[in-house]
């Protein structure tokens, strides 16, 4: 029935990312995931942040919102509450989503809206030519940290878990099939789904390259890990160094933000009448 393919999303714009950028892998997987789920140009809305990742909208023919830097999640929640039947997906970056938008990230997670967030995590601000991002690891030398990063990095997975996200996973831009599967699972999850996606920045990071990641990543599912225990997931979220886990760390079903709104019980807000019937009740309260 569905004639939606990765080509459905083609526009007249070509990517402006650096050759070899991890964004390409994420983009390919994203298009595949949408096509496989039957979400075409008019069937969903994608909210993009500002950063290299955010430029993706120009080559994605699907309703798009290029939000302000850091503000993807509030916009996405507003869209979702206006029409909760519409798939709402957020493409964000580590600087966008965890720096400028860090507060929104925690609060979105605790509300559990049915929104999927893909974080392009490359430890740097590429668009502003290579400053350290909130996930940059200690010692990492960037334009803003010539002596190496001194702060502790933010751990997006641990943060998502403690804040209340109901689907928490890590993907890798260098593993398109695995990432596609992860993205599909995240979009299909009913609730706030966070996928932190490791991606090399080929221009501003000589350390965390594709080979660097490939030597370290492994799939949780290959170890027989089941994503049903928050404490186990916390433990896995802190595994970093010689071994870096990929896959779903945690998943649970809980009422979403929309489920808890009585006004949305019957149909989306956007389909509801604008006029009220019980005007007298409305006014008599004040007599």
């Amino acid at each position: 029935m569905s004639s939606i393919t990765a080509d459905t999303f083609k526009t007249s714009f070509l990517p402006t990312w650096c050759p070899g950028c991890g964004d390409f892998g994420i983009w390919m997987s994203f298009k595949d995931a949408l096509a496989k789920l039957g979400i075409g140009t008019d069937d969903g809305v994608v909210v993009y942040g500002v950063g290299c990742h955010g430029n993706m909208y120009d080559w994605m023919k699907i309703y798009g919102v290029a939000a302000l830097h850091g503000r993807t999640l509030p916009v996405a929640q507003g869209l979702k509450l206006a029409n909760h039947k519409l798939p709402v997906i957020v493409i964000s970056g580590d600087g966008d989503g965890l720096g400028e938008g860090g507060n929104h990230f925690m609060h979105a997670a605790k509300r559990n809206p049915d929104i999927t967030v893909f974080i392009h995590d490359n430890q740097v601000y590429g668009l502003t030519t290579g400053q350290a991002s909130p996930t940059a690891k200690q010692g990492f030398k960037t334009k803003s940290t010539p002596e190496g990063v001194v702060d502790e990095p933010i751990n997006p997975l641990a943060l998502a878990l403690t804040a209340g996200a109901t689907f928490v996973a890590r993907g890798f831009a260098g593993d398109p099939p695995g990432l596609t599967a992860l993205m599909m699972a995240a979009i299909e999850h009913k609730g706030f789904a966070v996928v932190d996606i490791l991606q090399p920045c080929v221009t501003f990071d000589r350390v965390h390259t594709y080979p660097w990641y490939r030597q370290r990543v492994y799939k949780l599912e290959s170890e027989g890990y089941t994503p049903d225990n928050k404490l186990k997931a916390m433990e896995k979220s802190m595994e970093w160094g010689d071994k870096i886990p990929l896959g779903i760390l945690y998943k649970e079903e809980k009422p979403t933000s929309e489920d808890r709104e009585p006004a949305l019980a019957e149909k989306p807000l956007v389909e509801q009448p604008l006029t009220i019937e019980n005007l007298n009740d409305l006014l008599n309260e004040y007599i």
Partner: protein
Amino acid sequence: MVQSVTWKIGGEAGFGIMASGTMLCRAFSRAGYHIFATNEYPSLIRGGHNLVTVRIATEKFEAMNRDVHILVALNKETVDLHKQELSEGALVLYDPKDGEWNANDFSKKVVLVAVPLKDLVQQGRGEPVMRNTVALGATVALLGADFEALASVIRDQFRKKGDEVVSQNIAIAKAGYDHVKQTLGTETSMYLDEVQKKEDQLVINASEAVGVGGVRAGLKFAAIYPMTPINALITYLADHAKQFGIVYKQPEDEIAGINMAIGASLGGVRSMVATSGGGFALMVEGLSWCGMIEVPLVIDLGMRVGPSTGMPTYTEQGELQFVIHAGHGEFPRIVLAPADAVEAYSLTIDAFNLADRYQIPVFVLTDKYLNESQWCVPKSSFSGDVVIDRGKLVKESDLPTDGSFKRYDLSVPDGISPRSVPGMKNGFFYANSYEHDEVGHVTEDVSKRIAMAGKRFKKFEAIARDGRPPTVFGDPEAEITFVSWGSSRGPILEAIKLLQAKGKSARLVHFSWIYPFPANAANKLLSAGTRLIDIEQNAMGQLALLIREHTGIFIREKLLKYDGRPLYPEEIVERVS
């Protein structure tokens, strides 16, 4: 018998002072009197001095007067703080247990009414906090009104708490009423003339009026971070969310609030935010985005004393220039400023229609005085038919199936292009924070930039069609012309009446539609050779600056008040003479 009485009750926060004011208002509004109540309180929950002033009159009036006719003191401090405000012959109701008073403690002649508030509460087995209920009963007796007027309000107020609570409260109020009747024996000087009730009247604050206006305009989504003085709107929307199919979301901050509201508006529903100056400062970035992507949004900005945290629970008109200039970059907006609760209702409805019609942010500039005062509004003012105009919001069936829809179509003569909503078949577009082309793709091309910026600026001309001239009140030939905006209107209209009684004629040129500034109309009304006096509740004369910017007219005389307290008609009269 008198036609107007001003009653003031004071005490420690937590004594139920605010509720007493509202109950007294309701009792007399139900009987057909015109009422108005203002409050004054520090930014505290417990302790500190709370104050409510209620004016009750047989005829409609526009503002509080400064002199107090009845002072109800729930503690000694209240008399100390307010005895200077008493008028000649005022009644002072106090509890002797708080300390005795005698006539020479006061500079004017007053009538001392000792009511054992604490004892009467104790005899009725009430909580100490119910002293205000005794005082209400006593007040009704002092005003010569029927006790049943108060009893009916008490019944409605406590109905949810059960019959026992209702009858206890009525009994305690009655004790206060009877005490006055028995001890005074005779009619007081504050007996109110009787009135004929014409129609049902609402007792409502302007935040609630904004809420009612929003509901009637089809408001579906609001994201509001708590802040004085718009909290009553939050309560209103949260309480009615289920009844009227509204989603009220409490965001993590105002930045999230405006972005959520813009998201919901993009999603096709009527959406709003409300805040005060400090919260709006955080929204400014989002406002600019709203301007760029051409999304309708209503912003209720309840002004209070700034800068910074300022005096959070006091009133000011300090944000007029802020809202006109807020936002990085240039884009159109509309600024409306209600003068009372009726306008708060009607301008909120207008704001939603204007926002949709022009696909821009529209401000409703309220303030603490409007939002926390109790206004008396004929029910019919809020029950007329409401026109809902969603402008060029398209239906899915109107969209061309060949993919040729352009959300930011440059060929539209008025700059307002048809708007689709994500999820509509064939309505694809990007809502792009970057400068963009007709579909929403990013562009930095010179001609496309100029064209798209021009499209947005064209709306200024279109908006001019809807723009409203200032309203003129009073004698057009008057020697004095007051100039004002927003909530200053009421006190000025009262001042004009007082001046008239002194044989001085004055008129008011009042702006409810602030921006885009109605320059032509203002020019005509203000250029005549009368004595112009600008009256504003800020220190810079922000409307006067706007008038000068757009007309060249310099208003030399100004009455600028920025102490956080309401503007009184009497001080306007003093300024003139």
